[in-house]
């Protein structure tokens, strides 16, 4: 029986000729990731471990991105703990303030994730690197500790759902709308324990940034990973960013899938996930007048250069509506610099938005944009759970950068065309 793309990568990493869904395997890891929230717990576990040192100082990435620059004393203590650990074990890929970015935007940019890799990260959005044809999945701190010590992890081989993308996206519709559409269709546990394998001719027109956004939110459908075929665009991206060798795997033609869906990209519309689950989606034409208080454009889902370009295209020459706070967060220092050189930051500031240093901050209700009781936020982030961005009585509407920017101008949930018609 044929294997899926994910199964082929896992078989190779386990040193097996073939694997089947449900099989338990032990795989060699190419990278183990942690951040300033999850790594301290892992380091504490490592201390208990009767093992001296880490398996490979170049195959561990520690990114201080959630609560930095530190928001309070406790988070400063956490970062200090990770900093000391990184120093002690000479971890080469330790990224602190000045070098850091939001981890899932940073690692591909630094060339640390390539096709064929097996990656675990103590952050649920580790599935992002599937955009490059890697197997990557989120784990907890104990698995991270065991991974750092041994360079191995056990997995149950997942079955897969296939998403066949055809056609081309209309203007103002993006990767975010594709993944919200899919989550709306299959639900927040629609891909529980499974791979989400994306395929089809429609992929060639999607930018790498769109693919990162889609793979990033596989976890929001319960998926173990999301993965894309490695085409010319992906190869060019890896050649540009990495000196590492990559390995291209393809699903067998007779691979088995639990379900298959075909999505015609040309039929998609700007899509918004209503409180309090990413599956509560509506297309923009189904949205009634919903007034908002805040807009966040950023995160590991939508803080990349393409996202900022789209937001700037909408905001150019416009003003953020009176009373709306619009927070723009470039995901890495490099993206920040490129956005500055392209003049995007000027557009944001002139429109009345603020531009922050890279941080996960508001996405998880950490800092840099916490919501008060009854407030509503349109956000390009990935979760709209109860209390996620602040008060339990606040509301999050997940959307694309285009919708977020247009909504900041009108003060209510809007798509760019609606905003243009009004002005």
């Amino acid at each position, binding site marked *: 029986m044929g294997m899926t793309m994910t199964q082929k990568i896992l078989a190779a990493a386990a040193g097996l000729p073939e694997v089947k869904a449900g099989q338990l395997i032990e795989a060699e890891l190419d990278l183990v990731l942690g951040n300033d*929230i999850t790594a301290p*717990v892992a380091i504490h*576990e490592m201390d208990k*471990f009767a093992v001296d040192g880490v398996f490979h100082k170049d195959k561990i990435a520690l990114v201080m991105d959630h609560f930095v620059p530190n928001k309070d004393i406790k988070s400063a203590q956490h970062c200090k703990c990770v900093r000391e650990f990184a120093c002690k074990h000479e971890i080469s890929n330790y990224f602190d303030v000045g070098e850091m970015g939001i981890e899932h935007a940073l690692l591909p940019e630094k060339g640390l994730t390539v096709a064929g890799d097996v990656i675990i990260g103590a*952050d649920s959005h580790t599935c992002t690197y599937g955009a490059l044809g890697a197997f990557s999945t989120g*784990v*907890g701190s104990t698995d991270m500790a065991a991974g750092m010590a041994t360079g191995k992890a056990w997995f149950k081989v997942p079955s897969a759902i296939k998403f066949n993308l055809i056609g081309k996206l209309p203007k103002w519709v993006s990767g975010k709308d594709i993944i919200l559409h899919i989550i709306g269709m299959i639900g927040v546990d629609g891909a529980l324990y499974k791979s989400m394998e994306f395929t089809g001719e429609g992929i060639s027109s999607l930018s790498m940034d769109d693919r990162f956004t889609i793979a990033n939110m596989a*976890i929001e459908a319960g998926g173990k990973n999301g993965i894309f075929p490695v085409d010319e665009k992906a190869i060019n991206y890896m050649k540009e960013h990495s000196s590492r060798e990559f390995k291209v795997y393809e699903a067998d033609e007779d691979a088995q899938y639990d379900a298959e869906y075909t999505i015609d990209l040309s039929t998609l519309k700007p899509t918004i996930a209503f409180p309090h689950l990413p599956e509560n989606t509506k297309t923009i034409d189904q949205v009634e007048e919903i007034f908002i208080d805040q807009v966040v454009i950023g995160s590991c889902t939508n803080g990349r250069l393409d996202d900022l370009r789209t937001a700037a295209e909408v905001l150019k020459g416009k003003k953020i509506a009176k009373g709306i706070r619009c927070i723009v967060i470039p995901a890495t220092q490099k993206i920040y610099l490129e956005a500055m050189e392209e003049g995007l930051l000027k557009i944001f500031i002139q429109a009345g938005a603020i531009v922050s240093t890279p941080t996960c901050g508001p996405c998880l209700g950490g800092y840099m944009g916490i919501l008060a009781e009854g407030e509503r936020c349109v956000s390009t982030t990935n979760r709209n759970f*109860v*209390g996620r961005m602040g008060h339990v009585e606040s509301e999050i509407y997940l959307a694309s950068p285009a919708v977020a920017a247009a909504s900041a101008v009108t003060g209510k949930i809007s798509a760019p065309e609606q905003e243009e018609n009004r002005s």
Partner: protein
Amino acid sequence: MKANGTVFKYGDNVDTDVIIPARYLNSSDPKELASHCMEDIDKDFVNRVKTGDLIVADKNFGCGSSREHAPIAIKAAGVSCVIAETFARIFYRNAINIGLPIIECPEAAEGIEDGDEVEVDFDSGIITNKTKGTTFQGQAFPEFMQKIIKAEGLINYINQKDSADN
């Protein structure tokens, strides 16, 4: 091994943000995390929960973030077992790794209500609703999993195993 206590019952998609909100993740101290456990979904939980009590929920319990702080908070609050129709995969792994017993059992999730007295036998996987006089067959815990739970986590278990092997 057995768990025995009063049930706190919740619905579908209980996410890790409500189990332990990120505003408390600047701490990794289990006691401090436990003091905010379930705060955004059930303010009274920490005041009412007693050592040995159980959480029972419907589908996709623990969805969202990979924060191990979520099962740590539940365990440190005194909860002896979580039963759900299904669990999100990262939560499932994390719970086992830190030694929090969890069981997937759709029938039990449906047949147990808030406040019921429930007993779980980890050896046989039998879940008994003592209030209603009903039983459900969950999956038994294999021996190694019971050892992880007794050792209070995977790392301790590995250490104990290593020293026994030597």
